[in-house]
């Protein structure tokens, strides 16, 4: 097991290098002088020379790539032109929201998608099956930004005045102040802007839970419901479809017949024998749909006014803040690679047949 993970880690190094090289190459392909792009109207000749020297832009491209790699490993992702502070700090401020949103959306997708797929396969060709598959097919065809807007309209306008009304934007109600959890715990620390403390306390819901602020937790959760559903619907549909087809295939396998012949109850057969085998392709699909989840987060955050990586990327695109675009592209790709790595490892736990090589 250990060697497998190690091998898998080593195998992902070239991919990571490739990602870094690709994003590096993309910025070098940017039209125009990087100095002028970064300094804009302040770009005098001397300033540019200094700039080029500072960032090593006057040196050979291989050396430049080496510098880029060194900076990346040291956590220096450059400076945002728009915010005028390091991209790393921007990530510490913004990533927590995205992380929270993505985890909740994935949780929603799994918690709803798998049971739906299960029911659908169990009652194969029944009206439940057909209904579920219609929903799932529509779900995978929906633009996430449209679904988000429609949900916002429905829950904020149509259901106004009912108990089901939900806030269509922001991550907490105006005026809601939640203490950072470390203050609530009485820890006497003043964390740096880019520390782990700051990172965790930037996760609204987690922070509220840690700080024991029940009202804050409820409020944060209410704000997250719509983004969560909007973002989670596509993976939910994919998971439901995959669970169904995988389970249908497994239910036709010999070992399922064996389990039945043993005298196992049907529920036991489906949940204990078929389900675990059927989950293998579903786990792969979950890993893959995390990619679409990350791109979806970009759109969802923009719509629901959440201050996450996605909306920062959106602002950066509109503000032509290329450093941020590049840094975030790398970060998202790296996260994606790590997730796929974790999925592979999880796969080994689930499927004993997978051996080294």
């Amino acid at each position, binding site marked *: 097991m250990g060697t497998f993970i190690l091998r898998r880690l080593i195998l992902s190094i070239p991919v990571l290098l490739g990602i870094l090289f690709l994003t590096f190459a993309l910025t070098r392909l940017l039209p125009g002088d990087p100095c002028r792009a970064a300094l804009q109207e302040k770009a005098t000749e001397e300033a540019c020379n200094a700039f080029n020297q500072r960032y090593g832009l006057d040196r050979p491209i291989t050396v430049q790539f080496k510098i880029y790699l060194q900076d990346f490993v040291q956590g220096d992702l450059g400076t945002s032109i728009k915010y005028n502070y390091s991209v790393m700090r921007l990530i510490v401020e913004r990533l927590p929201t995205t992380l929270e949103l993505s985890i909740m959306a994935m949780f929603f997708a799994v918690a709803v998608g798998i049971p739906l797929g299960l029911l659908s396969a169990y009652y194969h060709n029944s009206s439940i099956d057909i209904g579920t598959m219609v929903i799932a097919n529509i779900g995978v065809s929906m633009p996430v930004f449209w679904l988000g807007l429609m949900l916002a309209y429905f829950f904020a306008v149509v259901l106004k005045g009912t108990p089901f009304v939900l806030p269509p934007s922001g991550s907490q109600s105006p005026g809601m102040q939640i203490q950072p959890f470390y203050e609530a715990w009485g820890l006497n620390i003043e964390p740096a802007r880019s520390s782990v403390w700051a990172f965790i306390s930037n996760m609204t819901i987690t922070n509220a839970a840690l700080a024991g602020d029940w009202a804050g937790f409820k409020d944060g959760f209410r704000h997250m419901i719509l983004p969560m559903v909007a973002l989670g619907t596509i993976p939910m549909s994919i998971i439901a479809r995959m669970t169904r087809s995988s389970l249908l295939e497994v239910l036709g396998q*010999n*070992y399922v017949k*064996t389990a039945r012949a*043993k*005298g*196992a109850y049907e529920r036991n057969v489906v949940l204990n024998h078929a389900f675990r*085998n059927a989950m293998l392709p579903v786990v792969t699909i979950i890993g893959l749909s995390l990619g679409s989840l990350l791109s979806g987060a970009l759109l969802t955050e923009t719509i629901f006014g959440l201050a996450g990586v996605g909306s920062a990327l959106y602002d950066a695109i509109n503000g032509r803040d290329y450093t941020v675009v590049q840094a975030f592209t790398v970060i998202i790709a790296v996260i994606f690679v790590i997730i796929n790595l974790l999925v592979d490892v999880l796969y080994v736990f689930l499927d004993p*047949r997978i051996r080294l090589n």
Partner: protein
Amino acid sequence: MTDEPMLKVENLRTYFFTRGGTVKAVDGVNFEVKRGQVLALVGESGCGKSMTALSIIQLVDKPGKIVEGTVIFDGENLLERNRSQMTEIRGKRISMIFQEPRSSLNPVIRVGKQLDEVLKLHYEDMDKHERRQRVIQLLKDVGIPDPERRANNYPHEMSGGMAQRVMIAMGIACEPELLIADEPTTALDVTIQAQVLDLIRKLRDEMQMAVIFITHDMGVVAEMADDVAVMYAGTIVEHAAVGSLFEEPMHPYTQGLIASIPILGEFKDRLEVIPGTVPSLIDMPPGCRFASRCKARVEHNLEKCLHEEPELLEVREGHQVRCWLYEENA
């Protein structure tokens, strides 16, 4: 030992309702098995022998459905039991072993645990430790060396023969009264085959189980069975004690099957092969189901075979056959 049959199947019909039409996989099958006796169900693949077995324990998949008949097991019609009542029978009093041992074991669960599950399902009073003991004992009984270690293996870590032994251990775990073995040796090497057959025979003797042994291999039949039922296209065409059948096979189909066995030391120019294939089970010809492939029909020039289906006739004591050739002998 009573003479009362352990299992009595009467007029069993299992049809598959597909888009292309109704497939009559099992179409009026009758037989009985006594305690300690081995009944062999013989026939080509697709003749309905496996489906008959699955119908007995009611594991017919959709769109299949048992449309008629009774399955009397120990004096009780199983078809009157509902789904949850059937689970009490399956694995405990009737157990079944399948053809492909490796694909019949769940690939993601350790074999010990899979064995343990049968015990857990049917012996509620057994505790974990007792079950573990029993699992090891069972593995030892079916001749698996080093059972403590093997119990922790996954199915893919075992050979086919080993896996089939595990399946058999699973089948006998609750000391069933009836064991259905669906081609348990087909996927195995010849030497392993013999071992597995020996094992089943030994267990039958020890536990006095009734056994339904499904195979298409007449050689295995000769070795294992007390009674033989030959199936063709969903019906039994000949039913006799094993000695009677091999001495004097009556149905042209049975004759063909026996003729196709290669016999050691005997030289044949060519093995007999039954021409043609099993007719489509959807559009069954009106007459005898074997008529289109029957040499005897041509030789005796029997027109009747094409128009009228023969009954199963008791031609001799304990020897029944479904063929117009023996019409007057009955």
